[in-house]
């Protein structure tokens, strides 16, 4: 077993034994990744921070229930997934509408056309316009380095759903770029 994996399991065992230093150490190692993931899901720094704090509390309470069936990081990201979505559910406006509006704005505004004339900028805007589910699929695969199976476990959905979310994200981003090209 990889030393990194063993160390993570040991950290969770210490957290289960209510070792506060272990929780701090875990955050020291994975805090950036957890916050980046929460930010990708929520699109909001304050909500992402709340989601990470809430996730740390859940980790503290449930570390004893971790069974060494997979990588601890996948289990931890699954907790962040839940707390981040929970923070989104407290929004007064429906998420899909917010995302849809921002995408339309990026799509139609002439000022936006000027700003997003480069691919990187387009992708940056396009990623923001995706729904949380599609953003997190890209995030889990490309940044967190999870396999399709691990990403599916984090999102509590079948592997096929992760694949279709990736595919949908690509279609939306490609469509956005094509429209931007046509508008030049």
């Amino acid at each position, binding site marked *: 077993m990889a030393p990194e994996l063993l160390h993570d399991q040991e950290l969770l065992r210490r957290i289960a034994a209510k070792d*506060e230093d272990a*929780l*701090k150490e*875990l*955050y*020291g190692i994975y*805090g*950036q*990744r*957890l*916050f*980046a993931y929460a*930010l*990708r899901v929520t699109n909001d720094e304050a909500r992402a*921070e709340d989601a*990470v*704090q*809430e996730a*740390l*509390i859940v980790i*503290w309470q449930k570390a004893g229930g971790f069974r060494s069936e997979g990588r601890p990081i996948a289990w931890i990201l699954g907790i962040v997934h839940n707390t981040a979505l929970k923070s989104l559910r407290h929004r007064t406006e429906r998420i899909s509408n917010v995302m849809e509006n921002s995408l339309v704005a990026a799509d139609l505004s002439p000022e936006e056309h000027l700003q997003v004339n480069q*691919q*990187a900028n387009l*992708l*940056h805007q396009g*990623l923001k316009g995706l729904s949380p589910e599609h953003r997190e699929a*890209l*995030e889990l*695969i*490309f*940044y967190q*380095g999870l*396999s*399709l199976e691990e990403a599916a476990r984090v999102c509590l959905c079948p592997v096929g759903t992760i*694949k279709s979310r*990736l*595919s949908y*994200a*690509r279609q939306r*981003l*490609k469509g956005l*770029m094509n429209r931007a090209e046509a508008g030049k």
Partner: protein
Amino acid sequence: MKHYLDEMPLYVAGELDEKTSKALEDHIAQCESCREELNLWQAMAQTVREEDSRVIAPANAAQIALVKIRKLEDKRLPSWRMPLFSGLRKPLMGAINLLRVQALMVRHDMWPAVAGVMILSVIVALISKQYRVIAFVGPLVAAASLAGMSGPGQDAAYELTASTPTSAWKILLARLSVVSAYNLGISLLASAAMLLIIPADLLGLFILGWLAPMAFLSCLALLLSVWIGTNNAIVLAYGLWLLQYFRISIMFNGTAGLPAWDAFITAYQRFWESPTLLLAVAAAMLTATLFSTRFTDHRLAQYQA
């Protein structure tokens, strides 16, 4: 020709196996549309990685989470903050629950019967100005209530009680505690009523005068009830209690009586006036009673037969 569209994100993420990766690379070299597709995936992955690598996590999230955790854990210990008490809480709540349930299982007519007899005794004592009536009746009432507390003939839910996972001795101890506390409370109230005919400074001595005999007679009646049944236990306990008053020279006024018998009665009375001895024997009988429950379960089978 296979275009490997589904495999592209996995290839970009480095999650595709070596053989499929090679096949995909060979295909890309020949197919321009797939090359564009792969470029798009790579650009997307690059954008995600660049954006995320610029994210700076809040430095104090773990500390804030720990503060929240401590607050949550404090809330869960509302009045039992000390670890010692939190450890005792569960067994204590279990004991309280057992007492509450067993109080409901005791014969319901026992409660008013005890109170009624003691009220009558108080009335008789006040009218006759004989406070000793309470000291005489109190132990008898207590013995009767304990003797009739459990067993096939007395417990409406005896079969249920006998088949419960709670040990028989725990059930008996719980009932003993509830009924004895009730008897004690009623007798103390009756004694307080005697303040109408006795000076206040005598009250303590008066209470001590019936307390030890009550404990002794209660434990004796309970022990006997477990082995020989409620009715026999009451008759025997009452007999032993009344025996101290069977002094022949007094009963048959003017006769010489039997000096040996009267000497025995004098010694016997002294026994009933020795609180330390009475309490010690009562404690031994209580232990024997609780231990007896291990050997008296066969009575359920007799009852069912």
